[in-house]
């Protein structure tokens, strides 16, 4: 059986991109994966009111959660809030590659959930997005 632990995943795990904190982030969110203890925090600094000027993640946990968070930050950086909002589950999974079981899916999607929680909170529509977030 071929492993989902590709060279790429391991590279992102060992050499995370955009890891750290931002001093002037307008968007901040944090969550944990209660089933396995992964922690992800995401901070975003906006350009005006619509564009992600900078993004950082912080956290600890498995290679899947940390690598996918790192990959997500690269994807989001420079995008408009509207574009960031449209990033889907499938986008993240195709970046990771390989098959994930239901439990590990939670690891892979934690950062997306955190990013979207922060984003919806910022634009004031967190309540309406509950269903989307709970599907992550």
């Amino acid at each position: 059986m071929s492993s989902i632990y590709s060279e790429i995943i391991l590279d992102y795990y060992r050499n995370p991109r955009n890891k750290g904190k931002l001093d002037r982030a307008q968007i901040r969110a944090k969550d944990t994966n209660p089933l396995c203890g992964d922690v992800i925090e995401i901070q975003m600094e906006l350009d005006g009111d619509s564009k992600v000027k900078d993004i950082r993640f912080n956290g600890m946990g498995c290679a899947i959660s940390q690598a996918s968070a790192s990959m997500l930050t690269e994807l989001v950086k420079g995008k408009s809030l509207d574009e960031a909002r449209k990033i889907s589950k499938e986008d993240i999974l195709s970046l990771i590659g390989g098959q994930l079981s239901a439990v590990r899916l939670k690891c892979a999607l934690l950062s997306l959930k955190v990013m979207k929680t922060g984003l919806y909170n910022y634009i004031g529509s967190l309540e309406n997005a509950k269903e989307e977030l709970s599907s992550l």
Partner: protein
Amino acid sequence: MQKTVQYNVEKVRQDFPILQRIINGKPFIYLDNAATAQKPRQVIETLDRFYKEYNANIHRGIYKVSEEATAAHEEARAKVARFINARSPNEIVFVRGTTEAINLVAHAWGRKNVGLGDNIMLTEMEHHSNIVPWQLLAKEKGASLKYVGITDQGILERYEFQQHLQSGAKLFAVAHSSNVLGTINPVRELIREAHKTGCCVLVDAAQSVPHMPVDVQDLDCDFLAFSGHKMCGPTGIGVLYAKGNLFDEMVPFHGGGEMISEVHPYESSWKPPPYKFEAGTTNIEGAIGLGAAIDYLSNIGLRKIRLHEREITAYAIDKLSRTKGITIYGPSDPQARGGVVSFNLGDVHPHDMATLLDEDGIAVRSGQHCAQPLHERLGIPATTRASFYLYNTEDEVDRLANSLERVRGIFKL
């Protein structure tokens, strides 16, 4: 009486291996369904498959077998939610049975919401499991119990209900269907009236969910409790439903593994419901078996089951009432009752009755059926109870009636 054409009781019977038993030389007739139901092949095989193919602890296991068990367990929760039309599987907590469900509410909701001088309203027809937890809570908190009386036919005294409501009650805990009288209480209307005064309502659905369609959104109950073993599932598994975010506001019941978010030496935090109320390793195959039972009942259709039971109950009441010296309890209208027929015959003590019927291979229950206050109200020490389910036949009722004649002979009635 006209038969329901689509209901093939002989086909249903073939699903239940135990019905092939011979007791004391006679075919086994099981009429103790209000105590527990028999299990169809489909449920037995589901449990067998679990043990042989994917037995594992759930939730935290990162390997295939555990993921299969977890998925099956959570699918069972979703099946329960759909079965009673809950809004979300998060409104479903797995417990041991109705009794634990009610204790959970008494502890986790009651200790927070019921205080000195508050009233808890019950009815005279409640099962001990819907009395004792409230006695314990009332004693601890200095609250009072108020009982809604019943008529001699076993119908709730609506005027008393309204009076108690007006004096103020925090909670109304009521059986959907009585396990002795068969009475089906009009819980939908009672809930509507209770809610107008801000009174919370718990429905003990142990005798309704197995036998008829129950829709928690239609009823609008706050809590609903039932047991898997009375609906063709295993023992050791049952359900507590709580509406919307009621679970969020409740304190933990049992503490331990799996119900926690974080544990530090001197303080901990909890997972969101339903997990907050499922401490430790739960009855995993029990939940999966209950899911299989729900599939089984749903495939036949709860409406059809209810219709079949109503017919057989009407037939039984008609037939048994021709036995000289018999007294049958509960409402006379079969529309207003479930498949439970409690009776007494002359001076035959119900325990002697049960032994005599057992000699003929017929299983009934005798005694007070965990409803001592009800028997005190009726002024009788005990009753014999025949209770029906989807696999019982009119032929079995006939044999019960014949046995009663035999008992009359022995007792020279």
